[in-house]
């Protein structure tokens, strides 16, 4: 009997459940997708270094995702609870035992959790297939051991999500069962919090702005605290944001309330709602602003890295292309590369040891890269220096960059070189036109290699730097992008659920306003205004955080601000979408029974 009632209740609110569901499905889909990349043991061990490194990045991504998913599920469950509170109260009034109702709540929570996770895994699997395609193109190599439908990833996703849901179900049940049935039925008659001292908000705003100003100053001078700067910045930004949010709304409302603008239409109503609501919302708004900033920052950094692939490649070597023992086809392709200067050295290979003749470096000095002293930004401030034979004997490690990872290089005297028991081969060190232009030409040389499975087919120099950077940064950009979107989806959903939880209390108020003569249009606009403040206050703060925070990343990236545009646009489009959805749902809940 109880089950019938429960199912009936579910049907009437199917649309609300859909929103909850979709958020959970997106979350578990992305989690699963990351898991297929991070926990595939075969893929990690058997593939090359680049893929293994990417796997580490994905692991970090998963941890971050898990943390915010946890918070998200708690909020989503809170919303669920709010929706069903009256029903549960009714069941208890009808005589259902508390344990039974508690059991029902737990069942419902777990059922939703199970369904959404399974659906998410399926959806994530489909996503993974297309992701594999994209990644292969980006990384330029085959992910032979990658499996879009990977049992281990499924299990991990299922276990983690069900664990979180189980935890949430426990909390829900405990909270619900403790409340007397009357409280549950009478929800919405809670009196508002008492009014605080009028001067307190102003103090908070000033304090908050001061703290944030300090945080932004720190971001411009990140070396003050060394490696702790980032963490310290994060903490004080959090504190500063909290005070700003808590104080600003109330302070502004207090100021505006006395103006004649406030006496127009429902402006005072909106002001009053905000003033009383904000205290409840400060924590989540602070979290949203920080997460917004983190996500936007991550995406911007990903794009920025990608945009500076060329510069990264240029810093890796003075030579556009370094080819060891080219075959005939490669030599033909090498002629087509726009060359500035070509140097040839003889070498002898014994196992993984490479020997070079130092006298050759006297005739053709090796060109090395040296960062300029005191440069903040490594990627543009460097110069070339030449190493003769003697210098090369000291700096022979430079040559290991051009051969495989496990190799070692020895620059020895002409006499010693003669004595090495191995066939003499040629290696070509070629300074080319800028790598951006010559990349495709050099790729022809790589494609003609006899050993295409070797890292960048054995071609060293800027080409290798370019390809490595490109694939690595592509992976980072890709991961950053997905993480940022997952973060955004979840934090916006959290905020949406929080706002919608308050909508049930508002139904009575809006009905009353309609009864005393408020046109429907005005009611709709009022809702939109209130939700707008709650949505965009953290977005503004988060964006400010990123704009200042990017200062810190000038150490790593040449021009982070130039990459800010597109990520910001993507973010705002998605965020606005969530805003529109929140307003639509709010209106549906609150204006449902209004007769006009």
């Amino acid at each position, binding site marked *: 009997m109880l089950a019938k009632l429960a199912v009936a209740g579910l049907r009437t609110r199917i649309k609300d459940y859909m929103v909850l569901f979709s958020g959970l499905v997106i979350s578990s889909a992305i989690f699963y997708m990351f898991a297929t990349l991070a926990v595939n043991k075969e893929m990690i061990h058997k593939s090359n270094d680049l893929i293994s490194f990417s796997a580490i990045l994905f692991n970090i991504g998963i941890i971050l995702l898990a943390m915010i998913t946890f918070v998200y599920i708690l909020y989503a469950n809170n919303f669920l609870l709010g929706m069903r509170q009256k029903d549960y109260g009714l069941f208890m009034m009808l005589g259902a035992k508390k344990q039974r109702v508690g059991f029902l709540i737990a069942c419902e929570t777990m059922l939703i959790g199970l369904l959404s996770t399974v659906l998410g895994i399926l959806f994530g699997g489909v996503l993974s297939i297309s992701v594999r395609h994209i990644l292969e193109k980006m990384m330029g190599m085959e992910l032979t051991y990658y499996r879009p439908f990977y049992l281990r990833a499924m299990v991990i996703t299922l276990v983690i999500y069900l664990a979180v849901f189980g935890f949430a179900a426990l909390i829900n049940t405990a909270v619900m069962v403790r409340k007397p049935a009357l409280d549950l039925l009478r929800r919405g008659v809670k*009196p*508002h919090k*008492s*009014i605080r001292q009028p001067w307190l908000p102003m103090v908070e705003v000033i304090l908050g702005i001061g703290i944030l100003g300090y945080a932004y100053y720190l971001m411009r001078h990140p070396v003050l605290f060394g490696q702790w700067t980032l963490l310290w910045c994060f903490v004080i930004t959090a504190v500063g944001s909290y005070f700003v949010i808590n104080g600003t709304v109330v302070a502004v409302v207090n100021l505006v309330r006395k103006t*004649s603008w406030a*006496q*127009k*239409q*429902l*402006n*005072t*109503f909106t002001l*009053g*709602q905000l*003033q*009383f609501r904000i205290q409840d919302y400060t924590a989540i708004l602070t979290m949203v602003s920080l997460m917004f900033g983190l996500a936007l920052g991550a995406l911007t950094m990903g794009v920025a890295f990608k945009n500076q692939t060329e510069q990264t490649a240029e810093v890796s070597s003075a030579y556009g292309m370094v080819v060891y023992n080219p075959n005939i086809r490669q030599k033909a392709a090498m002629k087509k590369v726009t060359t500035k200067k070509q140097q040839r050295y003889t070498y002898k290979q014994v196992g993984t040891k490479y020997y070079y003749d130092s006298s050759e470096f006297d005739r053709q000095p090796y060109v090395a890269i040296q960062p300029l002293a005191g440069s903040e930004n490594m990627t543009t401030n460097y110069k070339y220096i030449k190493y003769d034979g003697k210098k090369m004997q000291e700096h022979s490690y430079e040559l290991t960059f051009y051969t495989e990872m496990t190799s070692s290089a020895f620059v020895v005297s002409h006499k010693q070189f003669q004595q090495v028991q191995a066939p003499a081969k040629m290696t070509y060190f070629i300074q080319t036109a800028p790598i951006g232009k010559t990349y495709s030409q050099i790729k022809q040389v790589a494609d003609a290699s006899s050993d295409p499975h070797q890292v960048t087919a054995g071609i060293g120099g800027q080409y290798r730097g370019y390809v490595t950077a490109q694939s690595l940064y592509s992976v980072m950009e890709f991961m950053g992008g997905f993480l940022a979107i997952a973060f955004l989806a979840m934090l916006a959903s959290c905020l949406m659920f929080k706002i919608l939880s308050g909508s049930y209390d508002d139904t*009575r*108020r809006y009905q*009353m*306003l*309609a*009864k*005393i*003569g*408020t*046109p*429907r*249009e*005005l009611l709709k606009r009022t809702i939109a205004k209130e939700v707008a403040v709650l949505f965009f206050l953290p977005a503004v703060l988060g964006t400010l955080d990123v704009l200042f925070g990017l200062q810190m990343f000038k150490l790593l990236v040449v021009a982070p601000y130039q990459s800010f545009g597109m990520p910001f646009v993507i973010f705002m489009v998605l965020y606005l979408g969530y805003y529109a959805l929140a307003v639509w749902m709010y209106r549906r809940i609150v204006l449902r029974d209004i*007769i*006009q």
Partner: protein
Amino acid sequence: MKKEQIVTVSQLRKVYGKKGGRQYEALKDVSFNVIKGEFVAIMGSSGAGKTTLLNMLATFDKPTSGHVTIAGHDVTSLKGKHLANFRGQEIGFIFQDFNLLESLTVAENIRLPLSLQGVKASQITPAVEKIAETLEIAPLLAKYPAELSGGQKQRVAVARSLVHQPSILLGDEPTGVLDSKTSREMLNLLEKINREQAMSILMVTHDPFSASYCQRIIFIKDGQVGQEIYRGDRSRQEFYQEILDVLGTFE
């Protein structure tokens, strides 16, 4: 001299439920008039249909058939912006549980109807102060509802319902949640407003004591108008006795 009718109800009928399903006839065939300046009560037991009737008058619900005319407007055919304007200009409604906005001060609560109708800020403040004086709540204007007693809250609600000088005041059990002393104060207040400002008042109540303050009582039973009794020149005590008699004979 024929006195002006402020409310005309003709053949009002309300049926709940879908066609083909189980239907419930809340109002069968209700017709009556209210003259301008009258203080009328609609009485009946729970389920008699009086709240349904009030909702029709206040435009909170639409009838299945029949018409309601208030201050010359056929309210049953009003829609959208016209309906909202009508509510905000011609009707003052007193809810049983006050329905004040807790996040607004008393003054801000009272001025809501004026703000909605676009009255200039310079005119709003004197209007609010005036009605607050009439209802003896002027010292409370800067307070929040949470700081008020039940009786004070109801006065604020009455002030809000009068500030825009409507054609008629409608009340849904205005003394329903008040204790006897506060009820008495509230009813004296309503009587004063009716007398001094010639404000037409129509009040739904199940309480004979409250009804005795009115000049006329319409009894509703099973969705239809039963008796109507007038106070005339009698004292309130005498009228109260008659009300009890009528209620006694309903069984």
